[in-house]
Structures are given as structure tokens and as C-alpha cells.
């Protein structure tokens, strides 16, 4: 009797094993469904503003103010693009932004790579405190900084006769106060993850500190450097507060402030051109992201695991 009772259960268990693979793939299928579900929500949520910008940029002012479907263009026109790129100082803003951002990237990377190398590798008195200090600097909100900066600029003007106010190139000195601490911090972490034996091997091979940095550390830490570069470029390109506070003449403005100050006149919003300007302004970071994305991801995840 007992045997008979056991026998069916064992035979039932044997075929039951096969559908287990089925249940695993079923599990996986559900996981995939859920991830697609949330990814689609995520993508729609974040693509909506640029899409709205794009739609609006193709509309005439009349169509924008008319009570039509905001998600559809009835009579698409390129007039916003043409006006913006020919009539306004948009190209000046774009040029100012581009020069400022490129130089801020160069200045920031030159300082932070060397600083990070020193702080990560050369053991000197107070190096650990300095490294923490660099990060703490980043925690001070920039809104707190521009009154002291005004004072400093006034002092520079009084003492040396150099007027730093209202020049686009002043921004090249200002932005690194925001970007250098963070870029240095990223690079310290990245350099610290490079095994110590690598620079010791280089040291024995006869490399100087500078050669160790240029021939070993920079190539090995390239993903981290690119991550820091993208971050710096984005901060410099999108910075709004400093240029708003420190530049006023139209010829000295950068893109974010330029769009706001020239296309909003009193309470008249030139929505079509604002959207066009913003869309074109978003292009350079987008292009840079697209090209460096793979490196960027590698840079963000490196140091998480030892590899």
C-alpha cells in the first residue's frame, strides 16, 4: 500500500520537473514585461518636454496662441528657426556659450586631473584632509557664493583696475569654482581604484611622476576622465545663475540667460523662439553624450567592482 502511494508521487514529480524551466522563463517573461512597462513610462515622461519643445518650435505665434491641440502642428513652419538664426543675437549667445564651456572643460580637467593624482597618490602631510576639503567646497551652494564674488570683483577692480563684471570671459574663471571640486572628487575616486603596484612598476621602470600620470594614469583612467569632462561641460553649458548675476550686456550673454532676457520682453513671451532656442541649445550636450555614452557608463560604474 505504502509503495503504491509513493509510486504515483515519484512519477508525478518526474514530469513536474520539466515545466520548471517553463516557469523560470515565465518568471523572466514577467520581469521583462514589467521592466518594459516602467521603461516606457519613464521614457514618455522624460521625452515629453523635448517633444513639446519641438512641436511648439514648428508653430507660428498665431497658432501657439490659438486654442488648438498643443500636441499637434496644423501648419508647420521654420520661421522660428530662420528668425532666431538670422535676426537675434542668438548666434552670439551660442558662440559665447561654446567658448566658455570648452575653456571651462580644459581649465577644469587640467586642474582636477593633476590635483586628483596628487591627492590620490602622493602621500603628503594633510593630503587626506585636503581631499575631504575639496569635496566640502562642492557642498556650498553657488547662490551663497555670488555676493562674496561681487565683493572680490570689486576689490580686483579697485586694486588692479581690471573690470571683471559684465564680460563673458569672466565666466571661464567663475565656473571652475563649481566644476573643479566635483571633477577632482570623481578623479580621486577613479585614481584610487588603480592598483598601487601599477605606479610602483612605473616607478621602477624609470617613470617620473609626470610620466606616470600621462603614460599610465590618464590612459587607464580615461573613462573616469570622460565622465568628469561630460559633467563639467554640462554644468558649464547649463549654468544660469552666475551669468544672470555677472553679465548684463546682450553681447556678453550666454545661451540660457540670453534666451530668457532677449525673448521675454516684459510679459510678452515669444514662445516659438524660446522653444526653438532651447531645443537648439540642448543639441551640443546631446551630441556629446551620444558619442561618449559608452565611456560615460563605464566611468560611472568603475570602482564599484574591482576589475
Amino acid at each position, binding site marked *: 500500500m505504502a509503495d503504491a502511494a509513493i509510486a504515483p508521487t515519484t512519477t508525478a514529480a518526474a514530469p513536474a520537473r520539466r515545466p520548471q524551466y517553463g516557469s523560470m522563463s515565465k518568471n523572466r517573461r514577467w520581469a521583462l514585461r514589467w521592466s518594459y512597462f516602467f521603461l516606457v513610462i519613464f521614457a514618455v515622461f522624460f521625452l515629453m518636454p523635448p517633444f513639446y519643445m519641438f512641436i511648439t518650435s514648428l508653430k507660428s505665434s498665431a497658432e501657439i496662441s490659438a486654442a488648438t491641440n498643443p500636441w499637434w502642428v496644423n501648419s508647420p513652419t521654420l520661421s522660428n528657426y530662420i528668425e532666431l538664426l538670422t535676426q537675434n543675437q542668438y548666434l552670439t549667445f551660442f558662440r559665447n556659450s561654446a567658448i566658455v564651456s570648452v575653456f571651462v572643460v580644459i581649465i577644469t580637467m587640467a586642474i582636477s586631473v593633476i590635483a586628483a593624482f596628487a591627492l590620490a597618490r602622493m602621500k603628503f602631510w594633510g593630503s587626506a584632509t585636503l581631499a575631504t576639503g575639496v569635496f566640502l567646497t562642492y557642498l556650498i551652494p553657488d547662490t551663497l557664493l555670488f555676493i562674496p564674488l561681487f565683493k572680490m570683483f570689486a576689490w580686483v577692480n579697485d586694486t588692479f583696475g581690471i573690470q571683471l563684471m559684465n564680460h563673458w570671459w569672466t565666466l571661464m574663471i567663475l565656473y571652475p569654482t563649481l566644476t573643479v571640486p566635483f571633477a577632482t572628487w570623481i578623479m580621486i575616486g577613479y585614481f584610487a581604484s588603480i592598483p598601487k*603596484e601599477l605606479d610602483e612598476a612605473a616607478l621602477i621602470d624609470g617613470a617620473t611622476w609626470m610620466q606616470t600620470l600621462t603614460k599610465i594614469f590618464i590612459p587607464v583612467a580615461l573613462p573616469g576622465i570622460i565622465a568628469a569632462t561630460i559633467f563639467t561641460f554640462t554644468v558649464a553649458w547649463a549654468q544660469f545663475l552666475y551669468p544672470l548675476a555677472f553679465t548684463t550686456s546682450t553681447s556678453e550673454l550666454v545661451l540660457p540667460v540670453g534666451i530668457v532676457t532677449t525673448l521675454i520682453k516684459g510679459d510678452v513671451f515669444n514662445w516659438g523662439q524660446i522653444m526653438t532656442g532651447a531645443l537648439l541649445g540642448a543639441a551640443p550636450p546631446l551630441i556629446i553624450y551620444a558619442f561618449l555614452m559608452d565611456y560615460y557608463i563605464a566611468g560611472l560604474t568603475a570602482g564599484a567592482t574591482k576589475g
Partner: protein
Amino acid sequence: MAQVTLRKVVKKYDEVLAVRGIDLDITDKEFIVLVGPSGCGKSTTLRMIAGLEEISGGDIAIGGDIVNDVPPKDRDIAMVFQNYALYPHMNVYENMSFGLKLKRTPRNEIERRVKQAAQILDITELLDRKPKQLSGGQRQRVAMGRAIVRDPKVFLFDEPLSNLDAKLRVQMRTEIKKVHQKVRTTTVYVTHDQVEAMTLADRVVVMNAGLIEQVGSPNDLYHSPATKFVAGFIGSPAMNFIPCQVEQAAGALRVRVNDTLAFPVPADRTARYTPHAGKPNVVLGLRPEHIAETRPHIEPNQHDFSQVIEVVEPMGMETLVYFTLAGIEVCGRVNPNAGATADKAMTLRADLSNMHLIDDSTGKVL
């Protein structure tokens, strides 16, 4: 000539003494292995020779010149690291030639040396691969190649085989020995593995707690250890240390282990051990291979005794047996066919011609 000399070398980290004044003479072309448990100061010593650690006291000389303040690159040394430390963005050829390039060696000379080293190490077909495309053993070869091309006065190896699996480790060990026989460069090699030390070294330096315990050829260390530490560190399984009493009874000197068991001291050692009769804290050192199963024919200095075996570990070519003697777990090596069975009494034979007597209070072998 590339002899390396250490005189009263000290290394202090804050208040901790890592190396406490060691003297060592390494002759030209010699293969020296520094061995000891972790934290004994062996790696620190090697790194001081390399110039990667500053010395806190004493002198280090390479080829007769004191190098205390000479930077690593000017010491004419090459080092192989435990984790290979290959430059990940360079291929094998670039890795091996990096040092020579920095020294502005002519290009054809670099090529000649790299090719030659690659041939010695059998890595010629790997020259244009990146380190990540190589296996652990191949990476280790490249690391050695990087050292060889520089044709240094001294090779320094810092536990180079620790990252490899057991089989590869044995293979690479032979490889390193072969390379040394071909290249004949003074070599200082650090390991915590006593088998590696024994198989590779011309002379082994056993270190413990920042001091050198003993320097000698592998056979010297094995057969005549100077201290209990060396006796216990060299040899696997480790030497048995059995508490005992040396006693003078009926005109013969004996080593008494417990109430019922006492081994007569070999005649050639009587004079040496007599002064220690009756002393407390004396330990009998007997290697497992000197405790075997009984055989019909008995040699001088061999003595049979019976014990209940507690654990039997068959190893194939031999079987290890464990039993308790004087409150200590003792290991013996018997023939696999001797019929050792756990929880059964077995007649064993101790060979005392290779015995050691150790003063446990000083740790010195008597």
C-alpha cells in the same frame, strides 16, 4: 657583480617596528627566498631593497654601492608583483619595452631584447595582445619578461605565484627556476609558501616578527633548524613538538614522553643532550616522516611503540595518521598498505636519528 647587502636594516611605521634590524649578504647570481608568515616583514624588506619603502635605519647596498637614498629607477633592479601590475592599456610588447623606452634605448635594441626575453619565456606569439586577453600564467610570464628585458642587477619577486591556481603555481615555479638558470641574475624572492622557498632557493631566509630566524640552504633548514619556529615552519606536515623530559637512567640517556613511553637518545647525541637532563620545558621535535609503521627489520635508533590512531588521511603515496601523545596531537607518515585504521591501536616506529631537542622557553634547538 651584483651582490646585495643589508646591514642592521630597520623599518618603522609610526611606532610599529616592521623590520627590526636585519643583516643579510646575498652573493652575486644567488637565488634567495625570503619566507615567513604574513606580517613577518619579508615583503617590507623586499620593498626596501626595491626603494619603494624608505628605510628607517641601517644600510642597503647593491653591487657594493649604498642605495639608501637612491630612487628605485636608479637602483638597476626589476620587480615582479603579485598582481602582475601590467599596464592594462598597453599590449605585451609595449608593456615589456616601457622601461627601455623611458631610458631612451635605441629602437632596434629594444626590439632585440624584447624578442629575446619573449623567446626565453615562450610568449613570442602573445606580443601584440592586451593583458586582459591573457591567462593568469601568461600574465605572470609577461611580468617576468618586463623584468628580464631591463637586464637588471637584481630581480625582485613579491609573491609572484600567489594569484595562480595550484597546478599553474607548480608549473610556473619550475619556469622561474629555469629562467634563473638561463639568465643567472641575483634574485630575491618573497613567498609565504615554504614549498616554494625550498624548491626555488639557493638559500632560504626564514623571517619571523621582523627578524631573521635562520639563513641556510633548503636542506640545512630542513635537517638542522636553529629554532623551534624554523623547525615548525619548514616541512609539511609540520614537525611534531612533543613535551618531554630528558632523564638519566641506568647509565643511558632517555627522552621520556609519558609514564610508559621513553625513547633512548642516539649514542652520537648523548654528549650533546646530557647537560639538559632534568630541565623543564624541553620539547622533542620529530618530523612525521620519522614516525612510520613497524617493520620486521629494526635499525639502530628506531623504537616501536603502540598508539590508538584517531584520524587516518590517505594521500595516495602515503597515509597520514594522527594520534595523541603526551596531550599533543602527533602526525605520522605510514605506508598506505600498513593497514592504519581509525580508533584501532597500531604499532608505530619512531626513528630518533633525526630527532631534535628544543628548549621551549627560548625557542632554540639544543
